């Protein structure tokens, strides 16, 4: 009998210790594991290394964990929306590794596909290439980038079931299925949790084998960074 369902975020993250390496899904504030971030702030674990495309904003998302100084190192591609992040970075309080977005995604994918490394042209000839092995294929240079190693991956899905199968919605999919494949332990929080058999197997984005714990989240704020609308004619 599979026992993946846990009651809430506190239970799902209870064994995350100081110094852990954690992947967090989401792009900007879209598709971030809100409940788990709140639980990590409440638990107060420190010296975390967070792998996430962005670092939230000052008072939401990973920004909440930066404010409480729980993050030792961020591995991201873009951190422009967070003033506290920029302050901690420029003052040297926070370590950061900025890597190209596609490289970030593909390094997660490599982990989930059981491949130790990938070659990408992104970053050739830039600071990103310093210290990295390069190789030429068909006249073009590529960088060797290693698969990520992380202790936990925490993702947010739209629907999930008791077996850990996940379905994402619209652009909140982003890094979530990739990180789900890449955690030593993967935690999924979902808006809707179903019994096994209630989701159509053809529609599953992440097969349950990649997911260790799943819970139904609550009170999703789903904050929008830039509400942009047009007027009705």
């Amino acid at each position, binding site marked *: 009998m599979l026992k993946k369902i846990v009651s809430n975020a506190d239970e799902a993250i209870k064994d995350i210790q100081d110094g852990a390496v954690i992947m967090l899904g989401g792009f900007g504030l879209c598709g971030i594991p809100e409940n788990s971030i709140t639980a990590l702030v409440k638990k107060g674990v420190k010296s975390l290394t967070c792998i996430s495309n962005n670092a939230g904003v000052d008072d939401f998302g990973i920004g909440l964990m930066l404010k409480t100084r729980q993050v030792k190192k961020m591995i991201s591609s*873009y951190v422009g929306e967070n003033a506290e992040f*920029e302050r901690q970075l420029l003052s040297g309080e926070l370590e950061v590794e*900025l890597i*190209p977005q*596609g490289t970030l*995604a593909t390094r997660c994918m490599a982990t989930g596909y059981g491949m130790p490394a990938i070659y*990408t042209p992104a970053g050739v000839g830039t*600071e990103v290439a310093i210290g990295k092995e390069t190789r030429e294929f068909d006249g073009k240079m590529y960088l060797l980038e290693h698969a990520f190693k992380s202790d936990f991956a925490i993702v947010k899905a739209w629907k999930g079931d008791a077996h850990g199968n996940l379905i994402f919605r619209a652009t909140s*999919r982003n890094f979530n299925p990739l990180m789900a494949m890449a955690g030593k332990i993967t935690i999924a929080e979902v808006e809707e949790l179903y019994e096994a058999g209630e989701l159509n197997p053809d529609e599953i984005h992440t097969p349950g084998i990649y997911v260790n714990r799943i819970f139904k989240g609550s009170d999703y704020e789903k904050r929008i960074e830039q509400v942009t*609308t047009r007027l009705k004619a």
Partner: protein
Amino acid sequence: MLDKFGIAKRIAKELQDGYYVNLGIGIPTLVANYVPEGIEVILQSENGLLGIGPFPYADEVDADLINAGKQTVTTTNGSSFFDSAMSFGMIRSGRVDLTVLGAMEVAENGDIANWKIPGKMVKGMGGAMDLVASAKNIIVAMQHVNKAGESKLLKRCSLPITGLGCVKKVVTELGVFDIIPEGFKLIERAPGVSVEYIKEKTEGNLIVVGEIPEMILD
């Protein structure tokens, strides 16, 4: 001289029917507003959407549906969603026909810098390094000079590089420039701008061959 809308309008004239296009944040995003009549282009957003529709009406805003600039958007007929690895897969494998992005500096050899000002600004490269390393055709949309009045079209980039030798064309408020082995080749002047003025504002090697036409926008 062009304003940012004029720059976007001029770049839109480079679009061809059936193009898959990735538009960066800022002026590039505006290009979508000027797609010429009778032409269909499909916009790719690297956060995982092919077929970006217009901004939503206030009552259809969806927090799960944003573009790479984190703005709320809509889908359009034929749209699809995918994860970030597949998104950069389509970029890396050369499926995206045109990439339009902003820059802090462009060099006469096609190098681009747009992700970092050491000690001052550290926002990160986002998807820019992946895009410039793989896109078939890259157009830069930017102001010709920086806030201090210094040329952004340079002999060599002074800021950390985003990609090497990748920019094919630059459109600024002053004109349109093709990057050829010898440098920035002036193709068109913005309305009311002289070749002499463009020369004065361009630090990199400017190539002027014959009479340079003034661009026609409408």
